């Protein structure tokens, strides 16, 4: 991760150089989005479920402190040790401390975007701890030394051939092999050996239940369970917004999560942890890392409702054609672009602009986060605070001047159409950022307004 960070627009330009590849990326994600549509249409109560989920999460935001305290108390009663981390550094230190206490220097991990956010792997590695990611997609990107490009589908940006080459190098598979069955089998053997020999396992948390002190981890591969049930010590790390009030609310969220993520009615494994097994230690690390600040931002607090299904990414035309890495943030795509500026406005000022504001993300979001509105609002905040690059600022200012003056808008539209017809080269050039990757449309002969005015008269 020592590479210098490129802005989203520049990074996507690089991504866009290979057109067939970009088309493939686009179509693959759109396919996942379609599976989500099909699956959601099978439930007549889908919209009510979304309302319920959003409502429960709103209750959660307004009762967070009480819910967390109740969760902590119950978890302790269940024999689980609870830790609190104000930021990423504290989180990483807590995990390291637990491993050191047990003299453990090797750990298996199942998918956790929170540990990505905290850059935990690098930190532990520097401190002599080997961390093996056990979700197949995560293991693939780990072997490639890069972060996941999607929160649900970490290796969605790679082709079979890339993975075949990677496994040939690291796992000794046949050169040139690309059969997913064969490659998965090789990973299964390789990782089984890790599961059987590691004494510590770390997992994420999908939902934590205040009422019972238990938590749920969802996977398709079963890697969270393989790790946790074999290890002497299980560490579960959660952002504090993962809390829900009652066990029965899991009914709402588990129905929405997998359907929104991949179109499955439920993930293969939804594991409910409450008490450590005999002889095992179980720890929960509750992490803030900027979340309490976001909670205080009225316009952006709804982003804390996110259940990390990835639906907003799969549907986003910008994400699909720019790839997760162009967002230079653990969580990419529309929701990542809302969360990132909260962590660092200077570093992430470009991300809220990586959107067409078409609203597709908000339409698919299972917890009804007003994603595109928030992206729009971030733009204003960032501009006001002086974090917006000059080129964009001029555009925004020109746009608001024009939109604020209808006469000027009409005139400039007419001028624009004339210019585009008479001198297309003035628009279709590299100075117009909108022209990149697309041809400008043929301008209509008259505007809708002119047409309307003319026809109303008849």
């Amino acid at each position, binding site marked *: 991760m020592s590479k210098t960070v490129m802005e989203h627009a520049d990074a996507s330009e690089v991504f866009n150089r290979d057109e067939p590849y970009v088309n493939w990326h686009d179509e693959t994600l759109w396919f996942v989005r379609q599976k989500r549509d099909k699956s959601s249409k099978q439930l007549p109560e889908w919209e009510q*479920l979304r309302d319920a989920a959003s409502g429960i999460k709103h209750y959660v935001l307004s009762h967070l402190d009480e819910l967390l305290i109740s969760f902590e108390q119950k978890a302790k009663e269940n024999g689980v040790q609870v830790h609190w981390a104000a930021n990423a550094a504290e989180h990483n230190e807590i995990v390291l401390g637990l491993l050191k206490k047990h003299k453990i220097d090797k750990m298996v991990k199942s998918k956790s975007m929170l540990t990505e956010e905290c850059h935990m792997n690098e930190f532990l590695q520097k401190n002599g701890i080997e961390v093996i990611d056990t979700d197949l997609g995560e293991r693939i990107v780990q072997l490639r030394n890069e972060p996941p490009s999607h929160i649900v589908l970490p290796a969605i940006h790679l082709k079979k051939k890339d993975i075949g080459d990677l496994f040939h190098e690291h796992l000794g598979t046949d050169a040139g092999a690309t059969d997913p069955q064969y490659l998965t089998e090789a990973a299964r053997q390789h990782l089984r050996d890790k599961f059987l020999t590691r004494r510590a396992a770390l997992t994420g948390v999908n939902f934590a239940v205040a009422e019972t002190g238990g938590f749920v981890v969802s996977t398709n591969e079963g*890697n969270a*369970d393989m790790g946790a049930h074999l290890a002497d010590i299980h560490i579960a790390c959660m952002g504090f917004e993962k809390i829900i009030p009652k066990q029965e609310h899991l009914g709402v969220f588990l129905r929405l999560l997998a359907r929104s993520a991949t179109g499955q009615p439920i993930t293969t494994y939804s594991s409910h942890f409450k008490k450590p097994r005999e002889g095992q230690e179980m720890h929960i690390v509750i992490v803030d890392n900027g979340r309490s600040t976001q909670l205080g931002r009225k316009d952006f607090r709804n982003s804390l409702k996110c259940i990390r299904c990835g639906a907003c990414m799969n549907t986003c035309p910008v994400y699909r054609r720019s790839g997760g890495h162009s967002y230079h943030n653990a969580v990419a795509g529309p929701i990542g672009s809302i969360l990132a500026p909260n962590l660092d406005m200077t570093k992430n000022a470009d991300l809220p602009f990586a959107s067409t504001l078409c609203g597709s993300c908000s339409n698919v979001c299972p917890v009804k986060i007003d994603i595109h509105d928030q992206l729009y609002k971030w733009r204003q905040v960032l501009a006001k605070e002086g974090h917006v690059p000059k080129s964009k600022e001029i555009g925004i200012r020109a746009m608001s001047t024009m939109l604020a003056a209808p006469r000027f808008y009409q005139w400039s539209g007419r001028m624009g159409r004339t210019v585009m017809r008479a001198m297309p080269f003035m628009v279709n050039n590299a100075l117009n950022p909108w022209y990149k990757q697309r041809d400008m449309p043929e301008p209509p002969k008259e505007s809708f307004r002119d047409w309307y005015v003319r026809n109303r008269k008849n």
Partner: protein
Amino acid sequence: MSSRDKILGQIRQNKPEEVALPAVTTFASDFENTEDKFREMLSAIYTEVIVVKNLEELAAKAEELYTGIANRATTIPALSGWADFSLNVSDPHELETVEIAIVQAEFGVAENGAVWVSDQYLPHRVLPFITQNLAFVIPRNALVNNMHEAYMRLQDTLGWGCFIAGPSKTADIEQSLVIGAHGARSMVIFLLENE
């Protein structure tokens, strides 16, 4: 100040005005036939459903299905003659060589084909994951329509429990579905007619 108090303090300061929980958070699914729906969902996730009249028939079916497979494990006393693998291990790692496990589970969910299994009938939590092949036995009348009904049954959970829907799978290589990632490579559900 501890991080705990700092975090809770900041939350208190920043949280929005109180809102109430939504009144409705459970919904009914009225499938024409709950068992048919359950079967339909399971066949979509590569799982065979077999109805057996009683425990003798279960033992016979198990024998037929898994002939030649050594290292069998079970949590069902009536199958103790069939399984030659003892679950009397103290270290779960010793289950590494299990080829087939037939496990008692509590109930199934029609809308998604998931089966609930928990500490109640499971001496080793890792068993359903570490075994190469997995079969569950559930009473035929223990099916619920959807997840809301499931949680009505599970007011609280024991130390650990899991909804398992089909064999382990992944689609991380170019979205091609592969069965058998880390967990079981195959799954069968036995519906037991009378206890």
